[in-house]
């Protein structure tokens, strides 16, 4: 699994794709998850925000682990974007409820 010169280009691209999924996708998912916590936790507003920020790094960690543990780069993206979409929906509902 070492990136030696003999490694095929497809492998290198796959690794790059996974790294991107982990770094960018992971950050996106962690941000959305923390927004959900901040909006939905039944504590005071500031406390919910603090809890969201503090726990976001665990979500980031899980996303990164998933990106490198799953079987293919496509799955890595899928596994990061699907929960992101779910969190985004939840956050959207939360935002809409605070506005109304």
């Amino acid at each position, binding site marked *: 699994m070492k990136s030696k010169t003999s490694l095929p280009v497809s492998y290198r691209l796959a690794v790059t794709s996974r790294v991107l999924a982990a770094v960018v996708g992971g950050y996106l998912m962690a941000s959305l998850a923390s*927004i959900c916590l*901040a909006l939905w936790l039944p*504590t005071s507003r500031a*406390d*919910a*925000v603090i809890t969201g920020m503090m726990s976001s790094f665990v979500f980031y*960690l899980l996303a990164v682990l998933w990106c490198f543990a799953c079987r293919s780069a496509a799955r890595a993206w899928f596994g990061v974007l699907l929960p992101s979409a779910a969190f985004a929906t939840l956050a959207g509902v939360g935002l809409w409820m605070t506005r109304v």
Partner: protein
Amino acid sequence: MKEGFRQAMAWLHTWAGLIFGWLLFAIFLTGTLSYFKDEISHWMQPEVQARPLDDARSLTVAQTYLQQVAPTAARWFITLPDSRDPGLSVMWQDKVDPGKRGNFIQKTLDPVTGQAVQARESMGGEFFYRFHFQLQMPHPWGRWLSTIAAMVMFIALITGIITHKKIFKDFFTFRPRKGQRSWLDGHNAVGVLVLPFHLMITYSSLVIFMSMVMPAPILASYGNDTRAFFSEVFPNTNNAPASGQPGTLLPLVPMYEQARAQWAGGHVGRVAVNNPGDMNASVNVLRAGSDSVVHDFGSTVSFNGSTGELLRVSGGQSLPAAIGGSFYGLHMGHFAGPVLRWLYFICGLAGTAMIGTGLVIWLGKRQLKHLKSNVMPFELRLVEVLNIASMSGLMIAIAAFFWANRLLPVTFAERSGWEVQTFFIAWGLSLLHAILRRGRQGWVEQLSVGALLFIAIPLLNALTTSHHLGVSLATGDWAMAGFDLTSLASGIFLGWAAWKMQHRTVPAPKVERTRGLTLKQEAN
């Protein structure tokens, strides 16, 4: 990545650890030194005299000084001396620019005479502390980079735990003199045994900068009004604006005493005065961080400065704020007494050693394949050079920083800046040296230079100041003596590591040459 979960995690551990290892090594080592920030500053500014602590006197002295020097300032900050840091620090801000940081002026006063302390210009331990999270980069970038490094460290720790198959079976195992095996044992031992510290220090560093790196929830909940969030979390930042009418500030000492009474005798760390020359002057008395493990930024008693009326006593923390506060408090270790501080220091060295051994293992494993051909591929050579420069080179740079402090003339222009320059010049030279010399000679020579520099520090101190070991031990100046003795010990360990590497009997397992390094960090 068709292999199993554990292999995938091992791959992640290896590469994340390699790419950020050199940076993390420097962050960990300088962070470890920061636990003795005040002691290092004391050694680097021996002119600052320790006075018996008397908060009331210090506060009066500071107020008199500020009334004379900065009566129209927007804010004053007075940081009281404590047993570790003998200087009375006053700071003021001429006018508040919301968009800009800075325009702060800081002076250290003698808490008895009230004169600005005349000491050699030096950043002291503050340099290591700042470097540890700002990496000598312009404002937000260093913090971002070090927080990213912390996230990588967190990932490396967790994947390391997953990868390590026999945590409990190998719990007590360390087999020296077995080449690659010993390095791995050492890496596992310092990793697993000090794991609670590693997890705490890594996660807390993320929490410390969380509002910078993870601003999404603040934006979602508060929209663009992020200030509202901070004033909800830290109510003491929410002070009355200046009225524009001149007023007289009452003496601060009675307010100080009232605040201590509110905290059942707790200590005051800092006093902040807003608009000192105004009718609406407000005084915030902040509690010292050394009072409790759970750090509370908002632990404040606020007064009206011109009437002395008690305005507000901050309540207890909510649970999430307390959790965040304990991460902060645990990371900083302000509450730690001398013994616990040394334990913190040793834990930090263990973390540094874990990163160092990890880097050495990476190279050792791959070098074995190229032993016969005696030609190293470029990327292995690169890793070797960076290993040498980031580990032994950093030691030399640290020693050079201390040497510069003693050798640069006191009147030298930009003196403290040049101390820092010396640090980076020495580091750069060691990188150059590592490029020019072959691996083993590189290690031996740099470790020897580091050893000489560190061993000579007590001597240098004796030659250039009147605070040599004979004096500091006799007068009980433990910070001064401790610094000299620790330098001596680090030097001896570096020398031992160099000797060990020079006298490797078997040249075959190249990795083993560097085995002294594991213990070297423990010495520093």
